[in-house]
């Protein structure tokens, strides 16, 4: 259905409640984006202060998660929404869960940066450039997904989900290089495992961005596209259980 808008309810208060909830989700998304960016910078530049900021941001993200969940439950209980409004609320609950987990992954990257700095083993290394590139990709994915949520338009969603293949390729490439490094010099193993963990966290963020895209397709079109392959997703219309 086209031209879905949050407003235009007979109840202006209901419009405001939905708009407020949506703004909070976007704010939370913005904070999580900042967390990823700063966590990767902190890791790659051994910036302890920035790593601390990421950890502090996570408190705000957690607070927003709880606030949005409560708002959604309150709207569900009091307004008994249907159709798009219902899908919007259910999707918001799922998206904030994904965002909170992304925030946790960013926080762990930041903690890793602090830990490596404290042990003095976080010297600049060529693998960090690839990590930064991978981080750019997943940031773009998350940013694209949040844009879809803001515009309520899922035209670009397959493009965003396609980017996950690039992320997976980067991840595989980093693993190969790390293994080579570890085989070259066993003293590298501990540090390489830490880098591997960061790469893994970024790969998971890409997966979570894909999950958000799937939830958004349900929100806008009412079609449940979870667990479909990319090829199935691009098919014009798939009959699924939600229908």
């Amino acid at each position, binding site marked *: *259905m086209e031209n879905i808008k949050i407003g235009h309810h*007979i109840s202006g208060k209901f419009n405001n409640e939905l708009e407020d909830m949506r703004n909070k989700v976007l704010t939370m998304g913005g904070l999580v984006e900042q967390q990823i960016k700063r966590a990767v910078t902190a890791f790659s530049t051994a910036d302890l202060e920035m790593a601390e900021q990421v950890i502090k941001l996570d408190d705000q993200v957690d607070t927003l998660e709880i606030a949005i969940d409560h708002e959604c439950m309150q709207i569900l209980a009091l307004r008994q929404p249907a*159709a798009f409004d219902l*899908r919007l609320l259910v999707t918001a609950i799922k998206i904030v869960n994904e965002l909170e987990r992304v925030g946790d992954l960013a926080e762990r990257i930041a903690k890793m940066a602090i830990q490596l700095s404290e042990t003095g083993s976080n010297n600049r290394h060529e693998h960090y450039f690839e990590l930064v590139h991978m981080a750019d990709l997943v940031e773009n994915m998350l940013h694209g997904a949040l844009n879809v949520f803001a515009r309520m338009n899922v035209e670009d969603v397959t493009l965003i989900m396609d980017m996950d293949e690039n992320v997976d390729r980067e991840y595989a490439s980093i693993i190969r290089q790390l293994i080579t490094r570890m085989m070259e010099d066993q003293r590298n193993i501990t540090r390489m495992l830490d880098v591997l963990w960061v790469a893994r966290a970024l790969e998971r963020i890409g997966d979570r961005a894909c999950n958000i895209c799937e939830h958004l397709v349900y929100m806008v079109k009412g079609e449940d596209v979870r667990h479909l392959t990319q090829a199935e997703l691009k098919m014009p219309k798939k009959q699924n259980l939600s229908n």
Partner: protein
Amino acid sequence: MTTQDIATQSMNLNSVLTKQAKGRPNEISVTVENLNLFYGQQQALYSVNMEIPKKMVTAYIGPSGCGKSTLLCCINRMNDLVDNVTIEGKVLLENDDIYHKSVDVSDLRRRIGMVFQKPNPFPKSIFENVAYGLRIQGVNDKQILNETVEHALRSAALWDEMKDRLNDNALGISGGQQQRLVIARAIAIEPEVLLLDEPASALDPISTLKIEELINELKEKYTIVIVTHNMQQAARVSDHTAFMYMGKLIEMSTTRKLFTNPQNKLTEDYISGRYG
């Protein structure tokens, strides 16, 4: 767990999900074909086409004046009583055209019972209210009447409350009990279809829930069509929902689909309280 166990479990799950999605086999009880209805010059229904599945609950929703009660009344020819009504098109019960000149309207209304918004018990005893339909059919055997009244009251979830006061006047019981009594009166003559025109709109929340629970039980035996202004009620009790607007059937689908993913913008706007 072996791979075979997992595969079996997966097949069972698929079978459960398919059953949930499809419901019962799609036998049709009432078919409405190209139905137009005019009150004088004023057209109230426009080319309505609809199939009402057997032994399921179908709800009509829509704003006031959209024609849902008019359509409901067409199904047992209640509009025959209105002056200046012109009806075009067909309404088929099973495969019989209910507007055919050979149809006996009394017999039709035995096959298609109706319950209205306001409970309308007769000023008689509770027993006589339920037995009324049988008596006008000429049944006077006391044992048959007793058994039928008890069965109907049990089906309407009213037996336990009424069994010791069957001779009390029906006008002395509560509104919720009166409405269930009227439903008992309707099902005492074993209709095929039960039409409910806002059956719970005048009742308190507890009585409303009892009626809804009753509807859920009655659909095992009867085809039920319900008109309601309460969309949550339609969502709770019905298997299929039809949205009507300005005399036209805009959309009809399974209730689950209509309330989560309607295909028509008018439906979306109405059920989500938008003004478009």
